[in-house]
């Protein structure tokens, strides 16, 4: 049993409550770009790029985009420098339904992310950083463009940064409306100016990424943690929140709660505390029926099975779900789970890129069968048909979109079976 989290005294570090922090002058006055300066110029503390990679690896910043992979470990996969270009692609596609956190960094603390991306660029000898932001975020893209140009003007990006001899460029790139571009290899295709078709792995992006060159892809929130780790040390970072999934987390809470929004708190927060104390409890005092903990693809949890479940990878795995993006969707007792599942399936059908048959056809069938059940034309055997379709999709495609579409179907039906059966006519099996 770990000690209960001291979340009430937690002071935000990703989005601290400092007025005007998005302006570069105010960011600098509050210690901004000091971590970058340290890494580039303090050769006693940071003798080389590897020392930076090691510190970040030690901190165990688990990727905040959904996969939860140790960011420093990912960096260490980059091959040795060979004189050619190397790229960092920052993933701000943020398109998993229920997820709306990175936009807070773009709006409130863009320079923290830029500083983190620059430290990553130094650590991996990156020549150009591309910041890929979903096209729907036009307002936030404009904020980022302003922030990047201010950082250029101050000499934090460009040639010979702060006189260190290290140079790197940074480009903000807008998507144009495609969920799949949040998948890392699809994002690379999109950056290359093509349709966002995911690539077969291997080769992994560290070997062959953008234009065939070594590339690392990191989520925006993941990179925003980097300057904090450099400033305060990996050991500090590991004291925050859950032991195996440490650090601050931006929890995006939406649905039937009184105060939906993005909250920065330590990882490992109990789900019930997040709903009742942080987000102000359920609207109209209703009962919690279901919680999707980390974006639409993560398996739904029943409201009566939330006791003791915390928002970290291990606790959620034990509970039968995943951390994902920590985009939590809270549903009250009046929610129609058949309708919710139909809407999620409609989304994945719309967003399937069409490359792989099991996904292109499977997502369509899921939506079609659920539509039939929703309208009262389903039979109980359709539920088994749905589960059968999911088994034909999972693990049989280039990327994980098919899995992301299959899991909600599998788990929503198994965890709310009675509700689905109530909507179906009983199948009559004729004897042969």
């Amino acid at each position, binding site marked *: 049993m770990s000690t209960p989290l001291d*979340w*009430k*005294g*937690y002071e935000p570090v990703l*989005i601290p*409550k400092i*007025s*005007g*922090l998005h302006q570069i002058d105010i960011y600098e006055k509050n210690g901004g770009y000091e971590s970058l300066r340290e890494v580039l110029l303090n050769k006693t503390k940071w003798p080389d790029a590897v020392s930076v990679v090691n510190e970040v690896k030690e901190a165990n910043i688990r990727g905040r985009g959904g996969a939860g992979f140790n960011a420093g470990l990912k960096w260490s996969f980059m091959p040795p420098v060979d004189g050619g270009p190397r790229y960092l692609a920052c993933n701000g596609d*943020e*398109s998993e*339904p*229920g*997820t*709306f956190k990175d*936009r*807070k960094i773009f*709006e*409130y603390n863009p320079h923290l992310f830029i500083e983190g991306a620059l430290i990553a660029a130094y650590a991996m000898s990156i020549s150009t950083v591309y910041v890929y932001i979903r*096209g*729907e975020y*036009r*307002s936030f893209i404009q904020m980022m463009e302003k922030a990047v140009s201010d950082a250029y003007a101050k000499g934090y990006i460009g040639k010979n940064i702060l006189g260190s001899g290290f140079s790197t460029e940074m*480009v903000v*790139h*807008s*998507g*144009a*409306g*495609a*969920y799949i571009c949040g998948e890392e290899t699809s994002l690379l295709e*999109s*950056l*290359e*100016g*093509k*349709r*966002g078709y995911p690539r077969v792995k291997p080769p992994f992006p560290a070997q062959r990424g953008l*234009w065939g060159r070594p590339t690392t892809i990191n989520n925006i929130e993941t990179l925003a943690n980097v300057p904090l780790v450099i400033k305060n040390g990996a050991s500090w970072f590991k004291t925050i929140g859950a032991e195996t999934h440490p650090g601050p987390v931006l929890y*995006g*809470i*939406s*649905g*039937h709660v009184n105060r*939906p*929004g*993005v*909250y920065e*708190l330590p990882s490992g927060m109990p789900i019930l505390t997040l709903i009742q*104390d942080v987000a*102000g409890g359920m609207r109209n005092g209703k009962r919690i029926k279901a919680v999707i903990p980390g974006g*639409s693809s993560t398996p739904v949890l029943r409201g009566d099975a939330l006791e003791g479940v915390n928002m970290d990878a291990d606790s959620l795995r034990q509970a039968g779900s995943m951390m994902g993006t920590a*985009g939590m*969707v809270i*549903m009250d007792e009046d929610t129609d789970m058949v309708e*919710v599942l139909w*809407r999620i399936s409609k*989304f994945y059908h*719309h*967003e399937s890129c069409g490359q792989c048959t099991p996904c292109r056809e499977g997502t369509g069938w899921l939506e079609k069968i659920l539509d039939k059940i929703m309208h009262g034309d389903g039979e109980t055997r359709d539920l088994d048909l749905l589960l059968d379709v999911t088994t034909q999709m999972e693990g049989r495609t280039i990327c994980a979109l098919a899995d992301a579409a299959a899991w909600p179907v599998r788990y929503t039906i198994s965890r709310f079976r009675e509700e689905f059966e109530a909507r179906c006519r009983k199948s009559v099996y004729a004897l042969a």
Partner: protein
Amino acid sequence: MEYSFSKDDLAKIDEIKSRYPEVMPATLPVLWLAQDKFGHVNEEVQKLVAETLDLPVSHVHGVAEFYTQYYKKEMGKFVLDVCTCLSCHIGGGYDILKHLEKTLGIKAGGTTNDGLFSLQEVECLGACGYAPMMQINNDVFVNHLTPEKTDQVVEGLRKGKYPEFESIAMPLNPNTSASKETV
């Protein structure tokens, strides 16, 4: 309609090309530039983009078709994208869509006869905590929609009043003593 890029546009396109080691990555940004200028990227515009970048028309067409935010045909002056995905769905997104269908007298996917409004049902826009919501002209988000607020926005647009970016303050951790204003 005759489609062409001005001298300034071409200078901007050269600047866009300089951000990448190859020409093809300029496809998405130049399609955006074209859509901002012409209001859409129909096949003629796609051809113009292809010729300007010296890329195959089939490539530009394939890209334009793949991404939902590019308008492949002429749209109304104001395009209303109503989100009905997960959090907006359970927050009443379809009620807002139906309300707009009724007030505008068109179905989702249609454009009003006066060419003023196009209405679309769209997937998650990343404003889940502020549901239901819509986006106007691929630009500003209008959050926390009610039928009344939706009417006000539509009436405002008729009078040429374009909604402003709504900054949503970070909600306060109820147990910290920080000031009310966050930005």
